[in-house]
């Protein structure tokens, strides 16, 4: 369990004071994956640096299992860092070490006995699907294999929290899927607490249990994936199920519908046509499976005679969220 409370980071650039993090709070329970999504410049990198104590936050706290991480003195900072395993965008493996030696690196730092290191490294390489690749140098591995070594290395010191900073942003789509599946699987089997920082909505869709949207150093929206997806006017819901831009071409009424969970699979639209004898024209739609549930977002055009108020009431009673487009 990792809890971040009111984390602030300001730094000076010449005369100006720049607020990179403006009171970020979040909480991730053990065994779940939390996504932090934001555009570049939203404060993601600063957040990562504060969580790993590469930078000291100006104020606020980071607690892992109730133990404070941020207020430690310099001497203890190395011990505190060991409680967070980190996966980097570009893996950041040492080119001079083989895959096995890279995984062994965190263990060497605390003088783990040689026999234990080699046993644990072999186990970790098996775990990430790189059995037999221990003697390969990073330059002989593909991008996805490097990232697997990076994940094994992050897990070597048995950290409480796995922090993934854009883990798939440098990978091709197929490899991205594989790496995300691996992170997902490891979270379940090892009961890790995982924070994934990313700008790719796809990462959130695929593996996250909950998500925070970071904008200008603030968390502007957060919650379990199912809840944020079920918020009709939320920016996360819009990003999860994007619809093309809307330009009105006629005076006909246009509705935006959000079908969350069970209602998404019900025959809502055909019910609408039958009951009100209305013409329903679907302008745009997006359907997603998120955390095992189906979500749909539709933009529909109705005919001019359609009784708008009654239709809205009917849809809402069926569990569909409705917004009349301007």
């Amino acid at each position, binding site marked *: 369990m990792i809890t971040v409370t009111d984390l602030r980071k300001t730094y000076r650039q010449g005369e100006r004071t720049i607020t990179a993090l403006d009171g970020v709070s979040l909480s991730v329970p053990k065994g779940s994956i939390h996504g932090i999504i934001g555009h570049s410049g939203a404060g993601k990198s600063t957040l990562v640096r504060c969580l790993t104590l590469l930078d000291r936050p100006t104020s606020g706290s980071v607690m892992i299992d109730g133990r404070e991480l941020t207020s430690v003195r310099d001497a203890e900072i190395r011990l505190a860092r060991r409680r967070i395993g980190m996966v980097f965008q570009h893996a950041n493996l040492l080119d*001079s070490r083989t895959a096995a030696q890279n995984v062994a690196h*965190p263990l060497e730092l605390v003088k783990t006995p040689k026999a234990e290191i080699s046993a644990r490294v072999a186990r970790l390489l098996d775990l990430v699907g790189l059995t037999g690749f221990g003697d390969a140098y990073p330059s002989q591995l593909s991008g996805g294999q490097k990232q697997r070594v990076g994940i094994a*290395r992050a897990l070597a010191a048995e950290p409480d929290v796995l922090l993934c900073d854009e883990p798939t942003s440098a990978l091709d789509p197929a490899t991205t899927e594989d790496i995300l599946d691996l992170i997902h699987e490891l979270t379940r089997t090892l009961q890790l607490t995982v924070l994934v920082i990313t700008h790719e909505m796809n990462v959130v869709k695929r593996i996250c249990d909950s998500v925070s949207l970071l904008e200008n150093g603030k968390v502007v929206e957060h919650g379990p994936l199912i809840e944020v997806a079920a918020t009709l006017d939320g920016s996360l819901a819009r990003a999860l199920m994007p619809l093309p831009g809307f330009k009105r071409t006629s005076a006909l009424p246009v509705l935006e519908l959000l079908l969350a969970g069970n209602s998404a699979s019900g025959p809502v639209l055909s019910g609408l046509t039958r009951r009100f004898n209305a013409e329903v024209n679907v302008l745009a739609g997006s359907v997603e499976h998120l955390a095992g549930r189906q979500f749909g977002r539709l933009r529909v055009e109705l005919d001019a005679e359609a009784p708008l108020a009654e239709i809205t009431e009917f849809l809402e009673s069926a569990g569909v969220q409705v917004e009349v487009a301007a």
Partner: protein
Amino acid sequence: MNFFDELFTNPGITEALPEEFLATIQMVGIAGFFTVLIGLPLGVFLHTSGPDGLRPMRITHRIVSDVIVNITRSIPFAILMVSLIPLARFLTGTSIGPVAASVSLSIGTIPFFARLVESSIRDVGSGKIDAALVMGSTRFQVISKVLLREALPGLIAALTTTLVTLVGYSAMAGIIGGGGLGRLAYNYGLQRFDTTVMVAIIVIIVAIVQLIQLAGDWAAQRVDHRNAATAGSGRRHKSKPGDVVGV
């Protein structure tokens, strides 16, 4: 007497040359040893104390980098050498001979080598340093396990360049009392117009330089695992083309 007969009868070659050859090797050896001993930590310090280093020390870095290293490097070696004669006498008890010359040779090449070390270390990606810090490395562990180890191919190349420079400097040092091939070339080649000795010395010096370069390139390549083509040269990774697992 033809050239080849003279090659084996000229006393400048048969008697003086072996001794002076050893003197040159001695100068390059001693100065090379101290250059690495002092220049390597100095180069590491130049990087780590710099603005983006592991432990920025603004004022100390300024003094070491801008004042000491740059001033030493900007004085032409011939002048530096002469001005360091009193120091050589103080340290070694004499101002002539290869040991005395090694003092000024070392001082001349330490800042040069330190700069090369600094720039090799600068090429180590900051992400690798962050990774090492996040896994709980001490600064010393970052230096020994990441900076020096990752920069090793560059450091070997830097040492190669420095040794070649030392061979050149040692010839200059020879003229003002250091001995070695430089003095022999000056005495025989210039003052006695003895072309045979001159040619022999040039050939030997070229051979020394080639040897250093070859050995340096070989060693640098052996420790370089940065690209796939050379990665296996140290320890071969046994894998058949077909056995790709995972991604």
